[in-house]
């Protein structure tokens, strides 16, 4: 044995010495943080039999943080919910939960919850009793009938939607506006027209190539957690290839094998050029297409498409090559492809690829009919908010009930909702937080949080096995004066003397009854009590959907020869898994979680390409002013290569004027300055087509960015050496 201490041993020794030195500091008195006798510790009067203080009990429920409807398990200790995890029984998320879902507890414990009913008296909102608020609504509603009443909501489903319908029908109205700025309405329309199914089931796990046009399916698209689970299977050997085509890199784009930046609005040209390249090798592919579609495919050869889209020709060739070699594939379209005046046509061009590649019926499957149509999700996009504004203009509405949606924040400012809402006599907000819309209401009804309320949910995107998600309270309400949505709806129905609701003491009783009324085929011979108990325990109730089949019809569509936007820069209002459309800006965990691309926290920023930055003479951290025809916003620049030089991306979610201490006055909202362009065929807002001008305002402002470098600088995540090299340098192991 030699006495020599080599470098490695030396480091080991120093390492341990270092630990010793560090640990010596651990005799700091804990009284720095803890003092005796400052906190109370409350015991039970009589212990609950199944409760052991300190040991968690898990209850199943359904996530309400976005419309995907994932199942969750809440860990409850001493009557308080502490932690949420995914419910493995849910076929939607199979045991996983995204960061927004995890942060559900901070929505629940949020210190800015509305805790009492309020009514507008004079100019401000004043605290009132529930009796006063509900009586006021009832007496006002007596004078309202027919279409002069409307619901304005985000995505709703299940028995809550049934009660909303019941109330609406009792008034005699057919109006229910559903508004989601993060949506897939254009694709739903194209799917309906081409496949005969608005929301077919997509099999990422079966695909060997996925070509995505701006569909951030790992982040904000349809059912992110479900997609991520399938994506993991897609990436298992033989590893699937992912190509992402978009103007600004999304989380999904960052995971792609090939990421292609295209000029905003030219996604359809890229798709047609891929079809062109495919048909060059195999002309039979285009057989059976309508002549017009064939002509469109022939119009874009690689050179022309490359010039229009700004993408390298070899990337089109490479993509076509992968698609030709590996089958089946899956081609999907997301917000940046949909959000143009020719959005429908772009998506149709993209869907055409699925038709010629034979993916329909392979990786795109029929969703089948959900057996309880009254429970299915009422989804929507941006068209409804524009129709709503029109109805306000025409003074068609006397009473509007708001739930979930916050259109004053998530619709362009030039729609003028803020002023137009003044024309409605009765605005009722069923709300947990004072957001921009709630603030303008005449009556504010404080709702239970998602952890306190009952509900059933049917997600718009059903993943294979269709389910009804059960939402049950994970704990007692935190505030005495809040109420459950279903409970309030039942009160309003009873006050209006709508027949059939008198027998229900509360929403729980209503749901129990509704479950007992479900067909025996769902109950597997269980008694009603057993059936209910098992539904609560499992958190999901599987239902069989009727088979259904898909068509592969190519719709009549067209694209302008060069669909690229004319102006200097196109504003991309980007969405991210985190703040979403702004509904999570009041959750500190999500504010402090760095953006997946820019790593910025607690702020807004404007992403631009280094070439654009050079042209404008700005660096990361400089402040710029972004001006559209409808207003301007200011944000700090973040220079990054993952964006097309013609695009300026500003994330959605910040820029709240109210909405609690964590959200208020932070950053800017790009939706505010969007132009009111619409897609020609669906009438949806063309949210990715606003032209802007950019000017520098200030140099280097403060902006907190986590992470010092954009690349791994060529280093591997885990350093490895081969056995050969090891033996040569280190000797025999």
């Amino acid at each position, binding site marked *: 044995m030699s006495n020599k201490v080599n470098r490695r041993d030396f480091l080991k020794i120093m390492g341990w010495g270092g630990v010793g030195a560090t*640990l*010596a*500091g*651990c*005799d*700091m*008195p*804990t*009284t720095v*943080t*803890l*003092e*005796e*006798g*400052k*906190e*109370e*510790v*409350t*015991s*039970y*009067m*009589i*212990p609950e039999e199944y409760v*052991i*203080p*300190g*040991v968690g009990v898990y209850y199943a429920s359904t996530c309400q943080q976005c419309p995907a409807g994932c199942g969750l398990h809440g860990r409850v200790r001493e009557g308080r919910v502490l932690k949420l995890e995914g419910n493995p029984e849910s076929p939607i998320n199979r045991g996983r939960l995204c960061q927004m879902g995890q942060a559900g507890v901070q929505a629940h414990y949020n210190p800015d919850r509305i805790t009492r009913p309020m009514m507008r008296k004079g100019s401000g909102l004043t605290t009132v009793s529930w009796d006063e608020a509900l009586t006021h609504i009832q007496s006002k509603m007596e004078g309202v009938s027919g279409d002069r009443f409307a619901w304005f909501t985000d995505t709703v489903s299940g028995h809550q939607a049934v009660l909303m319908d019941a109330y609406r029908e009792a008034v005699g109205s057919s109006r229910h506006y559903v508004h989601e700025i993060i949506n897939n309405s254009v694709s739903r329309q194209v799917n309906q027209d081409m496949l005969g199914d608005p929301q077919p089931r997509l099999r990422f796990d079966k695909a060997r190539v996925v070509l995505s046009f701006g569909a951030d399916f790992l982040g904000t698209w349809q059912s992110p957690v479900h997609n991520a689970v399938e994506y993991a299977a897609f990436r298992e050997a033989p590893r699937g290839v992912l190509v992402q085509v978009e103007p600004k890199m999304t989380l999904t784009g960052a995971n792609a094998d090939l990421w292609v930046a295209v000029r905003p609005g030219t996604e359809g040209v890229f798709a047609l050029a891929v079809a062109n390249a495919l048909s060059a090798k195999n002309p039979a592919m285009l057989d059976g297409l309508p002549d017009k579609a064939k002509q469109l495919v022939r119009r874009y050869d690689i050179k022309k498409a490359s010039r229009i889209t700004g993408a390298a020709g070899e990337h089109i060739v490479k993509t076509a090559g992968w698609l030709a070699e590996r089958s089946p594939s899956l081609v999907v379209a997301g917000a940046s492809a949909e959000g143009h005046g020719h959005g429908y046509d772009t998506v149709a061009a993209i869907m055409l690829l699925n038709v010629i590649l034979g993916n329909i019926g392979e990786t795109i499957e029929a969703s089948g009919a959900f057996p309880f149509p009254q429970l299915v999700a009422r989804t929507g996009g941006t068209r409804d908010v524009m129709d709503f504004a029109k109805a306000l203009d025409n003074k068609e509405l006397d009473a509007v009930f708001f739930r979930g949606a916050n259109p004053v924040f998530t619709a362009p400012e030039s729609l003028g909702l803020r002023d137009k809402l003044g024309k409605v006599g009765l605005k009722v907000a069923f709300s947990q937080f004072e957001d921009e819309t709630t603030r303008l209401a005449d009556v504010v009804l404080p709702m239970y949080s998602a952890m306190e309320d009952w509900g059933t949910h049917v997600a718009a995107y059903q993943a294979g096995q269709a389910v009804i998600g059960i939402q049950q309270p994970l704990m007692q309400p935190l505030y005495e004066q809040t109420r459950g949505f279903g409970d309030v709806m039942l009160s309003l129905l009873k006050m209006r003397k709508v027949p059939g609701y008198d027998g229900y003491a509360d929403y729980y009783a209503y749901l129990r009854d509704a479950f007992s009324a479900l067909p025996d085929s769902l109950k597997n011979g269980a008694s009603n009590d057993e059936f209910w108990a098992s539904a609560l325990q499992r958190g999901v109730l599987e239902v069989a959907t009727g088979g259904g089949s898909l068509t592969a019809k190519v719709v009549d569509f067209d694209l302008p020869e060069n669909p690229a936007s004319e102006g200097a820069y196109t504003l991309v209002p980007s969405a991210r898994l985190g703040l979403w459309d702004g509904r999570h800006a009041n959750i500190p965990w999500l504010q402090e979680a760095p953006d997946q691309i820019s790593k910025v926290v607690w702020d807004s920023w404007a992403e631009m390409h280094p070439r654009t930055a050079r042209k404008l003479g700005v660096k990361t951290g400089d402040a710029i002013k972004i001006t559209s025809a409808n207003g301007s916003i200011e944000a700090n620049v973040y220079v990054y290569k993952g964006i097309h030089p013609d695009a300026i991306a500003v994330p959605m979610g910040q820029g709240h004027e109210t909405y609690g201490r964590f959200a208020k006055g932070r950053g800017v909202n790009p939706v505010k300055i969007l132009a009111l362009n619409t897609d020609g065929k669906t009438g949806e807002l063309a949210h990715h087509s606003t032209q802007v001008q950019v000017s520098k305002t200030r140099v280097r402002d403060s902006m907190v960015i986590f992470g010092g470098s954009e690349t791994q600088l060529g280093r591997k995540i885990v350093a490895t050496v081969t056995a050969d090299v090891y033996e040569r340098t280190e000797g025999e192991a």
Partner: protein
Amino acid sequence: MFNTLQLPSGHITHRGARFVNRFLTPSLFWLAVIALVLGSGAARAESGVPNAVPPVGTHKGDDVPQPIEFPHNTHADVNQINCMYCHTYARRSKVAGIPPTSKCMGCHSVIATDKPRIKKLTEYWENKEPPPWRKVHDVPDYVHFTHEKHLKRFVFDNEGMQVENVAEVCAFCHGEVKKMTVAHKVKPLNMGFCRRCHEANEGPFDCWKCHK
């Protein structure tokens, strides 16, 4: 019992003595180790806890007035009631648990009902309000401490250990509560205290065992 192990560090409290604490502790630690080596034979023989090296360190806790001046001594010493009779969750959970008021009343609806403290207790019981006890022992939220695992190691999985002597294990961290009325914090319960004990008793030493 393990008074033999009381070291000069016993005089050093956190108040006004941070400097001393900070700079002398490492050497006190070695003194402790020497003392342990010298005194271990005696300590083991006297202690009712076999296979254990009790942790070292003291703390002079504040007086914490409680809603009822609960006499631990009457219960645990005079009447020899096992700690786990009232702190029943200690063996099953991370927290030992403050006994539910119903447990107090189980005895005190018949025992000593005329004493003023019991009258006060009965009043709480009748008002359906548990007494607002004040917390004396706590660790920060970033420390995951579990009573269950410690009792497993020192009592239930400890060969030769008599469960009746559990108070001596409790005393490792809580001091001789059975000689007190209301509890006083007499052990520092800081990381050094934990760490030395884990070292001496070969407890887990990974950061994430406690900080998770």
